[in-house]
C-alpha cells in the first residue's frame, strides 16, 4: 500500500505563508537590512565615521539624552495615569461610563501630532487660554513648548492606549480570586498590590514598552511642540530631509542606532509576553461597586478630566475650522472659508487617501489571515518564523521605516520612490502586527471540528475555508481592520518620508499647512479627516456591538 499523508493543505498554506512573508520581507526586512549595511559599508570598506561623529558631538548626544528623558518620563506618568484610569473604570460605577468609553475610543483615532497641534491652539504663544490669561489677569504664560509640552501631549494620548489594554487584562481577573484574597484577610490597597498588580503586570509592562518606543522616535509631535527641543526623531528627519545640514549617511547612522535600540526593547517585550504564565479567563468578572464620599468625587473628577484631555484636541480642531482665520490668527466671527480653501488644496488627496487606505486594509486582512491561519492550523517552523517576525514593525519607528524604504527603493532597479506602492506598503507594514494578533486570537476561538464538520459534509478544504472559516473569521477581524484603516489614513511619520507630490495624503497636507502657519485651513482639513474616521468608528460600533476588545 502506498503511503501518503494528507499534507496537501499543509503544503499549500505553508506556500501561501512563504509568498506573503516574502512580500513582507521585501518591503520591510530588506530596507532595514539595507539601512544598517548602508550606514556602515561604503562600498569599498567600513565607514564608521558617521557613528563616531554622532557619538562625539555634544549636540547629537544631547538629543539622545532628550529622547530618553521624554520617553522615560512619559512612560512613567502614563503607567500611573493609565493604570489608575483602568482600575477606576473597572471597579467603580462611574456616571456616564458609556459616553466616556465612546469618547475614549474616538480619542484614539486622533494622531498624536494633531494632539500637539491643538494644544498649541489652546496653550501656544497666541493660544486661546494664553491670550485669555493675559487679557484677564495679566499673566504672561510662555506657552506649552519644549520638554513638558511634549510630555503632556504624549501622556494625554498614551494614557488612553494604556487604559484600553490594561482594562482588557483586568477584565480577566476572576472575582473569586479577589474574594479568596479577602477571605485570607487581604483587603484594600494591600489586595491591589498583592493580587491585582502582579496579575496585570505583564500587560502593563509590555504596553509601557510600546509607549516608550512610540515616544522615543516620534517626529510630528516633537517637531510641532518641541520648538528646538531636539530629540532623535527630529534629528533624523532634519538630517535626512532638512533644508540645511542635510546628511543622508548621518541620518541612516542615527536611524540604525535607533533601530538597534528599539529592537532590543522588542526582545524584552517578547520575553515579557512569553513569560505571561497566568492565562486567565474570568468566569466571574469582578462586580463594580458604587464609590462613596471623597472617593466618588475624586474618581469622577479624574475620569472626566482625563477624558476631556483626550478628546479636547478633536473639539478644538473642529471648532477652529469654522472660525474666520488669517494665517495663524483666528479672527472673530465664523465662516466656511477655511473649508473652501481646504477642499481646494486637498484636491484629490481626499480620494487618494481613502483609496490607499482601502487597498492597504484589504492587503492587511489578506496577509494577516494567511499568516495566522497557517500558523494556527498548519503550524511549522516556516509559519512560526513568519508569525514572530511580522510582530517586529510594532517597534520600528515610522521615521526609521520611512528612511529605510526611501534608501532601499529610491534608485535602480526599483525606482519606487514616491509611488503609491511605497505609501501603501508602509501603511500595511505598520498595521500588520495588530491585525495578525487579533486574527490569531479569533482563530483560536474557532473550534477545528467546525471545519472538519464542513469537510465531512462534502466541502473540500478550499470551499470549507470560503464558506465556513472565512465568514466566521471575518466578523472577528473586521473591528481590528477598521481601526487599522483609521490608523493608516492618519499616519504621518513614515508617509512624510516616502510621499511625493503625486502621492500626497491628507495627513501630510495637514502637516504642511500647520508648518506654513495656516491654522484655519489645517483645522478644516483635520476635521474632514477626523469626521471620516468617526464614520468608520460608527460602523465599528455597529458591527462589534460595543464589545471590541484590545489585546496585545
Amino acid at each position, binding site marked *: 500500500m502506498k503511503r*501518503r*499523508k494528507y499534507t496537501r493543505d499543509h503544503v499549500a498554506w505553508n506556500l501561501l505563508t512563504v509568498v506573503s512573508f516574502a512580500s513582507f520581507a521585501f518591503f520591510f526586512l530588506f530596507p532595514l537590512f539595507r539601512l544598517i549595511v548602508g550606514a556602515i559599508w561604503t562600498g569599498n570598506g567600513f565607514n564608521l565615521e558617521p557613528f563616531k561623529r554622532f557619538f562625539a558631538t555634544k549636540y547629537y548626544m544631547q538629543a539622545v539624552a532628550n529622547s530618553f528623558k521624554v520617553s522615560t518620563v512619559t512612560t512613567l506618568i502614563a503607567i500611573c495615569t493609565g493604570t489608575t484610569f483602568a482600575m477606576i473604570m473597572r471597579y467603580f460605577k462611574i456616571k456616564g461610563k458609556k459616553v466616556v468609553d465612546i469618547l475614549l475610543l474616538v480619542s484614539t483615532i486622533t494622531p498624536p501630532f494633531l494632539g500637539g497641534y491643538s494644544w498649541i491652539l489652546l496653550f501656544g504663544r497666541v493660544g486661546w487660554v494664553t491670550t485669555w490669561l493675559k487679557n484677564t489677569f495679566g499673566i504672561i504664560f510662555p506657552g506649552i513648548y519644549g520638554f513638558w509640552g511634549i510630555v503632556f501631549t504624549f501622556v494625554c494620548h498614551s494614557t488612553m492606549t494604556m487604559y484600553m489594554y490594561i482594562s482588557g487584562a483586568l477584565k480577566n481577573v476572576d472575582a473569586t480570586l479577589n474574594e479568596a484574597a479577602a477571605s485570607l484577610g487581604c483587603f484594600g490597597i494591600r489586595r491591589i498590590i498583592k493580587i491585582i498588580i502582579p496579575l496585570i503586570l505583564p500587560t502593563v509592562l509590555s504596553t509601557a514598552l510600546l509607549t516608550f518606543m512610540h515616544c522615543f522616535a516620534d517626529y510630528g509631535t516633537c517637531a510641532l511642540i518641541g520648538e528646538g527641543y531636539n530629540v532623535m526623531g527630529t534629528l533624523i528627519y532634519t538630517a535626512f530631509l532638512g533644508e540645511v545640514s542635510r546628511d543622508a549617511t548621518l541620518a541612516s547612522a542615527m536611524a540604525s542606532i535607533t533601530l538597534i535600540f528599539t529592537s532590543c526593547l522588542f526582545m524584552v517585550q517578547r520575553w515579557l509576553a512569553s513569560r505571561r504564565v497566568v492565562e486567565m479567563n474570568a468566569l466571574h468578572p469582578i462586580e463594580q461597586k458604587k464609590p462613596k464620599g471623597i472617593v466618588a468625587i475624586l474618581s469622577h473628577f479624574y475620569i472626566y478630566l482625563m477624558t476631556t484631555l483626550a478628546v479636547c484636541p478633536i473639539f478644538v480642531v473642529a471648532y477652529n475650522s469654522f472660525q474666520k482665520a488669517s494665517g495663524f490668527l483666528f479672527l472673530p466671527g465664523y465662516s466656511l472659508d477655511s473649508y473652501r480653501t481646504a477642499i481646494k488644496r486637498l484636491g484629490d488627496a481626499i480620494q487618494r487617501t481613502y483609496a490607499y487606505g482601502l487597498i492597504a486594509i484589504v492587503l492587511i486582512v489578506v496577509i494577516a489571515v494567511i499568516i495566522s491561519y497557517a500558523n494556527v492550523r498548519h503550524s511549522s517552523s516556516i509559519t512560526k518564523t513568519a508569525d514572530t517576525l511580522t510582530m517586529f514593525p510594532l517597534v520600528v519607528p515610522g521615521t526609521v521605516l520611512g528612511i529605510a524604504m526611501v534608501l532601499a527603493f529610491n534608485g535602480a532597479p526599483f525606482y519606487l520612490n514616491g509611488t503609491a506602492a511605497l505609501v501603501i506598503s508602509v501603511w500595511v507594514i505598520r498595521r500588520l502586527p495588530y491585525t495578525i494578533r487579533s486574527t490569531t486570537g479569533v482563530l483560536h476561538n474557532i473550534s477545528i*471540528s467546525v471545519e472538519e*464538520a*464542513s469537510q*465531512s*459534509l462534502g466541502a473540500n478544504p478550499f470551499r470549507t475555508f470560503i*464558506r465556513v472559516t472565512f465568514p*466566521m473569521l471575518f466578523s472577528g477581524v473586521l473591528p481590528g481592520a477598521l481601526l487599522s484603516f483609521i490608523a493608516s489614513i492618519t499616519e504621518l511619520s513614515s508617509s512624510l518620508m516616502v510621499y511625493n507630490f503625486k502621492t500626497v495624503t491628507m495627513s501630510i497636507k495637514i502637516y504642511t499647512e500647520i508648518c506654513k502657519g495656516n491654522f484655519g485651513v489645517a483645522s478644516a482639513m483635520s476635521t474632514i479627516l477626523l469626521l471620516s474616521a468617526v464614520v468608520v468608528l460608527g460602523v465599528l460600533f455597529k458591527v462589534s456591538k460595543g464589545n471590541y476588545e484590545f489585546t496585545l
Partner: protein
Amino acid sequence: MSITINIEHAKKAYGKNVVIEDLSAQIKPGEFFTLLGPSGCGKTTLLRMIAGFNTIEGGTIAFDDKVINNLPPHKRNIGMVFQNYAVFPHMSTRENIAFGLKERKVKDPELTNRVDEVLEKVQIRELADRMPSNMSGGQQQRIALARAMVINPDVLLFDEPLSNLDAKLRVEMRSVIRHIQQQAGITTIYVTHDQEEALAISDRIAVMHKGEIQQIDEPVKIYRKPRNLFVATFMGQTNILDVDVNGQDISISGTDVNYHFERIRKDHQITKGKLVVRPNDFTFEDAGIEGVVTERIFFGTITTYTVKTNIGDLVVTRDVNEHMKSIGETVHLAIPVEVVNVFDADGKNMSIMEDAG
C-alpha cells in the same frame, strides 16, 4: 445499500508515538457499532482515521471493497457528529442542514423538501429559521445530527456526541439517535467512554484498551461474558476474589466456600485464578461467604451494602423490595455460578466462550 466497513491491520502513529499498533475489525451493513474504552485509548484516533482526518500509517480501511486510505474526507460521503456540536454559528438551522446538500448541488424543491423532512425527524421544525448561537446543547446536537443525516451518508460517525449534555438529555438524545439510525439503516460507528450508553444503544460493542480491541460482541455478551479481566472491570463495578482452581472445582481462597463450574474446560493446568462478581450478583443466603454489614446506602430502587469479610470488603447491591439487612448484622453471601466468570492469572476468561449467551 448499506455498506460494510473493513478495517485490516490498521496502524496509527503520531510521530514516534504509536497509538494503534495493529487493529482489525469488520462492521456489518446497517450496524450500530460502538467503540467503547477509557479516555486516551485511541477511540477518537480510530474514528478520525475512518473519517479521513487522520493519516493511516499502515494497513487498510475499506468501505465495501473500496480502500479509502487516501481518499480525502470530503469525498468519503460520511456524516459526522462531534462532541462540541460544531454547528456553523453564522448559519441558521436550515442553512446548517442544507450545507451538505448544496455541496452536492441538490436544487430546490428537493433541497427544501429534504431539509423539512429531516427537521421533522429530529423534531426541531420550530428552530428552522433561528441562529444557533443561543440554542441549548441538546438543540444544537439535533441540528448536527440532522445535518449529518440529510446527505444520506454511507457511514455515520459519532464522537462522544452526548458527553456535553446533562444526564436527562443524554438519555433522551440517545434514543433519538438510535431510532433515526434504525430507520435509515446507515452503518454507524459510535464512540463513547460511557459503558451504560454503549450497552443501551449498540448492536455490537468493541471494547478498546491501549489501542487494541479487547472484545467485539453484542452488549449482553460483553456484559455477561467478558473475554478478559479488563473488559469485566470496565463494564461496571466488580468484586474480585482470589480463587484456587482444580479442574472444574473452585474454592475461594481464605474461606471454605466451594463451587463447581460446568463452563470451564476440564483439561487445564491452572491452579490460581480470579473470580469476578458484580455487586448485584451476590445473594443473601443461609450459607456462603460470612461477613458483617458495615455500611448501608439507600438509593431508592436499590440498596448498597458494604460487607466486611475475612477476605476484604465486598460490595453488594440488592433490590429495594427485598428484606433489608441492618448494620452490624451477620450475613452469608452466595454466588450464582451460572452468571459469574473466572479468569486465569493473565486475566483471560476461563469459560468456554462459544456457548455463551
